[in-house]
């Protein structure tokens, strides 16, 4: 049986077709517009350049997240957990997702509830997990908005940090259809074998969710479906750093 990272690589390759297409199309369209310059053409080219910038960033984060998850799986990188500030990680992630969210007409919100004590996590893995989860949620929220034909102009993704009985939970939430523990459980079995293991959630391969899942697992936590008011999402709980909490 193939290692998880090998199966994840298949999803990754599938997912990366789209940003590479954007890059190729941008080059082709720019060349066409340069040959026959028009004002409308210049606007389209400018929009395309912005899109290429944000989708390339997303693709890089996905590759980097995958690489880190594979290194953690094979023990090349020390998965040592250290005290990490969840609130500042979520703040950084929100900033990173901002351009991508704009490209998908998505409004990002950051909700930090309660005092943020440091949690035991691998700083890089936590950052990469939440970032890739965020990219997936922005795409999924956009699909859900379009499918409902409601009057909202923007989709919404909310990054949430809150306390629970086990520790501090962080995750992404939105008005999504079809996201459930059953879907996630089935997807974990199907991934690497099905082209769209999370087909109710995204039209892509869902590589971002699985990269996040692998990274979170490497930190002795688990990605689970969760609710935040009316919103559905995926979140993981991390144990507070006892050492720093005592100080």
């Amino acid at each position: 049986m193939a290692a998880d990272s090998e199966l994840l690589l298949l999803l990754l390759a599938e997912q990366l077709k789209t940003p590479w297409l954007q890059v190729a199309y941008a080059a082709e369209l720019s060349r066409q517009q340069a040959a026959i310059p028009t004002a409308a053409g210049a606007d389209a080219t400018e929009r395309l350049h912005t899109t290429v910038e944000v989708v390339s960033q997303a693709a890089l984060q996905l590759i980097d997240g995958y690489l880190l998850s594979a290194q953690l799986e094979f023990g090349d990188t020390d998965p040592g957990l250290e005290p990490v500030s969840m609130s500042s990680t979520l703040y950084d992630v929100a900033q990173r997702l901002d351009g991508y969210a704009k490209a998908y007409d998505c409004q990002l919100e950051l909700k930090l509830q309660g005092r943020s004590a440091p949690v035991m996590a691998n700083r890089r893995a936590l950052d990469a997990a939440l970032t890739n989860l965020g990219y997936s949620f922005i795409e999924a929220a956009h699909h859900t908005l379009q499918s409902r034909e409601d009057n909202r102009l923007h989709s919404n993704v909310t990054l949430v940090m809150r306390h629970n009985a086990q520790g501090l939970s962080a995750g992404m939430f939105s008005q999504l259809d079809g996201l459930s523990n059953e879907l996630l459980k089935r997807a974990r079995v199907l991934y690497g074998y099905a082209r769209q293991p999370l087909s109710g959630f995204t039209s892509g391969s869902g590589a971002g969710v699985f990269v996040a899942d692998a990274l979170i697992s490497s930190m002795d936590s688990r990605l689970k479906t969760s609710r935040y008011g009316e919103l559905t999402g995926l979140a993981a709980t991390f144990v507070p750093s006892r050492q720093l909490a005592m100080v």
Partner: protein
Amino acid sequence: MQKILLIEPDRPLAQTYQTVLENAGYAVFWCPHAQLAIIAADKMKPSLVIIELKLAAHSGIEFLYEFRSYPDWVNVPVLVLSSVPMEESGVAGRLTAELNLAGYLYKPQTSLKKLSATVEKLLAPKRPKAKAGATNAR
């Protein structure tokens, strides 16, 4: 103006296709979801449908079966533009004929120029076929 119904889940990609096809003189209506595409088709009466088979929730093949079940849409040309290679898509062979597909383009091998050329060919006015045995009057 000829109308194209574009069913593409990825917004940035859809915007690119829309720009290119509108520059070529077509009216393009974008629909990211199969569920809404039937309603959209009913409203806009497309001359051509371009569809990605990998959609969220419903597959493009489900859409195509439903689309073809309406007598008005039996002959509307459908061009598949997908990131899934044809041989892995489930529409190869018998299904291509069953679903009356006008063409299949694999995205990684399709430039914008090739897409425009294919659409132009599919929407070009059909010339009446010369009758068998007809001779040039000149």
